[in-house]
């Protein structure tokens, strides 16, 4: 099934030669009391890249993403996004970013179109009504536009979260397990849209997922974390070597527990 492409503008076509770091993290550490959730990590994400943030539960992926959004403040280290210091340009940077997680909901008394529209206003999108309709079309939500969010299935909720995440045509999107809790058909559509967004807009995407096939299919590079540290930064093929990424993941997780 094809992903609708209404609203994509050719003027935003991604030029692959213009790669520069969109995200630069240096010596980032986060401690909660005696527990170190993220331990002195450094990495960068280039413009137009799709980078997977992998690791077992408790590896520090979500804390890292939360620090990239300013929801959690780092104990040490610096974050630069769009070549600006995140701490001192938070609001300005967040205008060109967005976020979606399978675990975040939306006000259940709002209609589907209203939720997208409110965030279009919040991100100061030009022609917010038109953009809302575009997102409804793109994510196949048009028939559900007047349904209350509380009545959506988890699959439709995931699509609504993604519609919200792309409503401001962000330069950088953080996706926390975007396809968990959706069926294979919707997961495939979501992956199609992620690829299309990269190709059409040059959107930079940092995503976490426990679906290794998805990571192999989508990501240009993978950052593998465990116990708050970065174990490896490689392409999915380099990381897996002669095995599959899933086998690599299981080996790393079990080595650790053994």
């Amino acid at each position, binding site marked *: 099934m094809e992903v609708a492409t209404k609203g994509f503008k050719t003027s935003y076509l991604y030029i692959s030669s213009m790669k520069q770091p969109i995200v630069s993290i240096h010596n980032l550490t986060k401690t909660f009391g005696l527990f170190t959730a993220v331990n002195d990590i450094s990495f960068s994400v280039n413009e137009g890249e799709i980078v997977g943030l992998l690791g077992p539960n408790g590896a520090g992926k979500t804390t890292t993403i939360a620090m990239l959004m300013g*929801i959690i403040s780092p104990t040490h280290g610096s974050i630069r996004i769009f070549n600006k210091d995140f701490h001192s340009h938070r*609001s300005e940077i967040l205008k060109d970013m967005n976020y979606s997680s399978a675990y975040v909901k939306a006000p259940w*008394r*709002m209609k589907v179109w209203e939720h997208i529209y409110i965030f279009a206003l919040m991100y*100061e999108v030009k022609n917010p009504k038109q953009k809302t309709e575009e997102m409804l079309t793109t994510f196949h939500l048009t028939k559900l536009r007047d349904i209350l969010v509380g009545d959506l299935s988890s699959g439709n909720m995931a699509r609504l979260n993604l519609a919200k995440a792309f409503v401001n045509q962000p330069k950088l999107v953080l996706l926390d397990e975007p396809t968990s809790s959706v069926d294979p058909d919707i997961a495939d559509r979501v992956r199609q849209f992620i690829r299309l967004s990269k190709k059409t807009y040059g959107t930079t995407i940092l995503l976490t997922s426990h679906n290794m096939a998805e990571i192999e299919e989508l990501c240009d590079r993978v950052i593998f974390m465990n116990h708050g540290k970065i174990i490896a930064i490689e392409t999915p093929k380099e990381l897996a070597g002669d095995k599959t990424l899933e086998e690599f993941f299981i080996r790393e997780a079990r080595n650790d527990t053994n």
Partner: protein
Amino acid sequence: MTPINFHRVNALVLRHLITWPRSLERVADAFWWPTMNLFIWGLVNVYLQQKTGTTAFFVNLFLGGLIMWTLVVRSQEEMGLLFLQEAWDRNLLNIFCSPITIWEFSIATIVLSTIKLCMTFFWMFFLAALLFAFSIFSLGWMLLPYAIVLMTAGWSLGFFINGLIMQYGYRVQVFAWTLTMALLPFSSVYFPVSALPPWMQMVSRYVPTSYIFEGMRGVFQHHVVDTTGLAIAIGLNIAYLLIGIWFFAFSFRKAQQTGMIMKFS
């Protein structure tokens, strides 16, 4: 500090104005409880007048006190409930990873609480006039500064309580409905400060709302305006509002350090 962006403030205000009529419990907060309070206090006054021959002063005292105290309670509760509503809807993460700043969020809660407060206030004014022939406008021009002081006292409490919730999470959410009530006896809403025990009188000197309700009684009883009391109330209010704003900003930074905002989602 990032300049305030009113487009984002408007977006958040609109989000709550859309869902408010669809939320029966929030409509009840604004209309049902104030209506029931007014009705019961009004009937008590009617009974007292019939049985003991009390004057209209007591009607003014109780119904005026009730309507004016509603200004404090509603402005504080609306601020607290708007924050909690985002947490209950698991929407706080969506809000705080958007470009909205904590100050824009706070302004939106103040705007919304003022809108809803005005609706509740005029509804109560209308009911009191219709059922008990009582008009809060008998306070004359003093009604405006009194109402503003009481409303801003609610904001100070709102900032303080939202700060507590931001730092300690759902386990202290009950403060959003209960903490303001602790101020009620010290505010001498239905009786003069002189009726309080000495230690409570000492405390009430530092409670701005006590000067307003004392002043209100002065206007009803002697038609005298206590400008000194009003000035003290305004001074205390400014101090508490600044402390409340500081505490809220401090709590937001603390919540970023502890990861509490993530826990709300």
